[in-house]
Structures are given as C-alpha cells and as structure tokens.
C-alpha cells in the first residue's frame, strides 16, 4: 500500500500553502534528490477557466511549489511548467489567460507547450492493445517529474485526478480521438511517462460548484492518490476503470495508507454533484446519442 498525505492550507497567504506542501511531503517521507538538474511540473490547465472555478491548477500554488523545490534542491535548478494544446484550448492563450505567463516571469521558470516540443514516436501496450504516442523531449529529459492535478468530476471517467492529468502530456492536440478508449489511453500515457511525485491542488475544489476546501494531497503513487481523490469525491475507486486498469498494469496501488488529516474531513466538505447536474448530464448524453444536437442547432 502507498502513502497518501492529507493536509490543509490554513489561511490565504503563500506561507500557509508552503507549509501545507512541506507537511504533505514530510508525511509521505518524500525528499528531493540533491543532484536534480531539470524539473518538469505538469499543472492541470482546463480550457480558459481560471483557478477560481476549481478546474485549473492555481498558478500561485505552482509558484509556491517552485519555491519549495528551489529551496530543497538548488536555486539554479531548471524548472519547466508543461501543458499541451487540446481540441478547444491553445497553450499560447491558456498560459496567458490562466496567469501562468505572469507567474513564469516572476518565478523565472519556462513554460513549455508540449505540442510544439521536439518528440519521438513510441509504442506502449495496455491490456494487450498497442498505443502510439509522441514522447516530448522536455518530459524525457527531466530528472524529476511532478504532477500537480485537480480533483474533478468527469462524465466519461467519473472522477479525474493525477492519472488523467498526464493525458495532457500527450502532444497531439485533437485529444477527443482517444475518448472512445480514454481509460486505456490514460493508463498508456502513465506507463510511458512516469512521474515521481503527485501533489494535488485541492485548495479550491470543483464539483457541483467551486468550494474553498484547502486540501493538499501528496503521494509518490498516482494510482493511490487517485483512489484517495475518489474517496473524497464520494466515488468508489473500484468503479473507476482507469484506476483499476492502472493498478493491473503495475503503475501503482489502488490501496493507500492515509497520513495527516483524516480523508473523511474533506469528504464531508467536498461539493458533491447535485441530482439536477446528474439529470442534466444524462439528458445531454441522450441528446447526443439520438442526434438531437443538430436538430436543436447546438
């Protein structure tokens, strides 16, 4: 079983975020190696929806994490924040609109659009099925890869967190082509790109509506942290296909040992989906299935 820590940011200052990050790392006994030269941080940027929606990693959280890494490794370590273009989101605008450009200038870190990065073609097999992806050079060359996801509800996969965030490291912009085999594609990318540390920015949680939850979670194991995220969001982790599949493929362990604050504290406060949201999603799926979208002019 893998360790997953749960800490709470008390107050709005960067110092309280810093303390929560440090505590969460201590609880899982994580120590940064001194010889690290290149660090990649994969934040979760969701369309052009800012951090206040709970759907995008807060650039202030990433800035604090950058400070922690520089303090603990070296002030000269190269840090790159990475994201890739998606069907509806372009990094050149998302970096600016979501506040990452400003943060990168201030913290002197690089912003890398993986869709424009040099990459090489690689093949990976999941459940006997081969997947081909382009592996970006920036990810390949990093000594330390840090995954900084958000916890979100998603129709296709029930919840998303650390494992799904790596889906955003796939440089191919038209990501919807993978949606038919989304669970397998998520697991394949995690098999291909191993991240050493996951730190969840749960300060503002999404869900039915955004709520200030103040949660910071950390783990070395993306499967364990996803199982913990599912628990907080009130979803049975065993019912989430990409979690069980990732566990079977040896990416991590779906069982976890909680450290720090009890997960139930955050579970009670997590903004669950309302019945109307569930009905609306079902209705929209029905509209899509029967082809009413076009008739309605959506």
């Amino acid at each position, binding site marked *: 079983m893998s360790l997953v820590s749960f800490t709470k940011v008390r107050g709005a200052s960067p110092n309280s975020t810093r303390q929560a990050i440090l505590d969460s790392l201590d609880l899982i006994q994580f120590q940064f190696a001194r010889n690290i030269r290149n660090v990649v941080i994969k934040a979760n940027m969701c369309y*052009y929806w800012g951090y206040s929606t709970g759907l995008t990693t807060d650039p202030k959280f990433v800035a604090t994490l950058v400070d922690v890494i520089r303090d603990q490794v070296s002030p000269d370590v190269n840090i790159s924040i990475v994201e890739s273009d998606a*069907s509806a989101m372009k990094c050149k605008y998302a970096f600016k609109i979501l506040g990452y450009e400003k943060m990168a200038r201030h913290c002197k870190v690089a912003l890398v659009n993986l869709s424009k990065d040099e990459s090489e073609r690689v093949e990976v097999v999941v459940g006997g099925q081969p997947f081909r992806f382009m592996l970006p050079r920036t990810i390949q060359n990093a000594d330390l890869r840090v995954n900084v996801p958000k916890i979100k509800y998603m129709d296709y996969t029930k919840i998303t967190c650390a494992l799904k965030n790596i889906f955003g490291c796939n440089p191919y912009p038209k990501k919807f082509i993978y949606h038919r085999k989304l669970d397998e594609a998520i697991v394949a990318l995690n098999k291909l790109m191993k991240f050493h540390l996951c730190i969840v920015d749960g300060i503002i949680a999404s869900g039915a509506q955004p709520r200030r939850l103040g949660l910071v979670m950390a783990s070395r194991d993306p499967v364990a942290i996803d199982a913990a995220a599912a628990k907080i969001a009130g979803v049975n982790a065993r019912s989430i296909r990409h979690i069980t599949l990732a566990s079977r493929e040896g990416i991590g362990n779906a069982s976890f040992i909680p450290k720090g604050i009890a997960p139930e504290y955050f579970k009670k406060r997590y903004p669950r989906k309302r019945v109307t949201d569930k009905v609306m999603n079902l209705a929209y799926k029905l509209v899509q299935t029967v082809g009413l979208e076009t008739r309605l002019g959506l």
Partner: protein
Amino acid sequence: MEGVATKKVRLGLIGLGYMGKIHLRHCLNLGSVKLVAVSDVSKKALDFAKKMGAKNTFTDYHQILKDSSIDAVIIALPNHLHTSCAEAVAEAGKDILVEKPLARNVKEGKEIVSIAKRNDVKLMVGYDMRFSPSFRSLKEKIQNGVLGDIQIAYGTNIGAGPFFHRAELSIPRPVPNWWFKKELTGGGAIMDLGCHIINLFRWYFGEVTSIKSYLGYRYDLEIEDHATCIAKFVSGSIGVINVGWFSQESQKKVELLGTVKHAIACRAPENRIFAGIRLLTTKSTQYESSYLRELHYFVHCIKHDLAPTPSGNDALKDLETISLAYKNGVSLK
C-alpha cells in the same frame, strides 16, 4: 399573387459562428422568412447548416449576392470583416442586418453607413437587448414619467465573452484567433458587451455628453477584458456601465434610480433543462427570444418598407461613444 402579409422575405446568412447559428435556427423556423442560402468559410459549419435544413451553402459569400431573389442578408461575421462584406451586400442591392458592433471603428462605421445610403438599402444593427420585453418596459417607464427623472443608471453586461460559458453545454468550444487581436476586434469588452448598454442608454437618455472608462486586464491580453465606464447624457442622467468577460454566469442587467421610483430589468440564462425543452418546442430559448423578435422586426420593416432601428447611424454614434471611452480610458493593468 402573394400579398405583403403572406409574402416570405428571402434571406441570405453570412457567417455561421456562435451568433450565425442562432440566426440560422431562427431563420429556418420563422414563418415569414425563406432562408435561401448560407455562407461560411468552414465546411464543417456548412454541413451543420445543411443538416439543420439550409438548402444552398457556399464557402464564398459573393455567391449569395449573385442570387437576385434574395431580399436581405444577415451579416454575422467577425468585426474586421463587417465593412468589406456590408459594402458588397449593399452594392448587390440587398438590405442588411449586421451583428453588433457595426464596425471596428468610427471610420469603418461611416463607410458602411454611407454605402448603405448610396445604394438605398436598409441597414439595421443587431442589438438584441432593444427587443427584450424587460428592457423595453424600462423605456416605457421613462417615457411615461413613472420613475421621475433618472439620475443614475447602472448597466451590467457580463459573461464569459469569447470563452466558452461553462453552464451552457458540456463541451468547450475553441476560441477563434481573431478574438485575441485588437486590430481585428477593434476593442475588448467595451466593444463586445459595452456597445449593448451604450446603445440602450442612448435610447433611454439621449446622446452622451462625456464618458470616461477604467480598463481591466485580468487575462493579460492586449484588449481589456473588463471595464467600468461612467457616462453623462443630455438628459442629465449619469450611467455607470460595467462589462466583463470574467464570469461563468452571464447577466444583462439595468437598474434605474429615479427621483420618484426605481426599476430593475434583468436577463440571465434560464435553467438548462427548461432551455432544452423550449428549444425542442419553440426552437428558441427564453434567452435567445429577443434575437427572434429582432429578426421578426427586421423582416417586418422589409415587408412594409420601413426604416429599421437601431439603424446604422445609431450604431455609428455608439462607435463614437466607444472611441471616446477608449480615448478617456484609464488602464488598470
């Protein structure tokens, strides 16, 4: 022979973006309209229009203009294409309903107005708030004097702007590149959303005598994404106009503070379930019904040879006001 009342007005639609698709749905479902042809550079958009029921589709809008049976054209293109398209439509002798803002700037606005006049075609600008019953009722209240003199008016028009509105549907839409370029839009939130309130307030209170603006840049773009304008009108009223692209929840709201009484009119998107049911039954949501009224009115003006309002000149005055707001703008970067 068909009488004026039964004759269908034959329309062409140029542009199938967000607004174009609303017009498409309404054109196809309004009894007094025959949608003859649609045009867009995107083949995907044209396929969509065909599935919706459009018969003739073109990637080049000049093909629409060659059809002499078409009476009028709706222009729902990006701001930078309004002038060239409106000129071509006017020279083809067809009446025009152009989406707001009329143009990117006063110079282009004047060109459009002048060419429409020279070719003797009707020119109407799509300010849907003018056709919303709640905002129209405020105009009546002002005219009837029931509110007294309006000393201060607050106008709010906020939403997600070019960015997809999370509450509307589940799938985000790509934002066309032109939205991010000042030379193509002519301005930011004041141009996009402020023009509605400026037009409405000018309708309520008369011309603007002075205006100042405070421009905000939450998204760090070259155009303002939110702003507050303070305007003085010939009636003596002061208008405070708040606009922005920062909100997941859109709202159009006007509050009038009069010497006798106060009044509020508001329009926000309806519940998604009700919106879906209304779409199925009436082909329009409550939120979009003012666009339907606007189209109905435009068609009525064509049938009865009336000069439609808001006119090109009216929208040109809005552009002059917006230009002044930018000139007197304080950047809050």
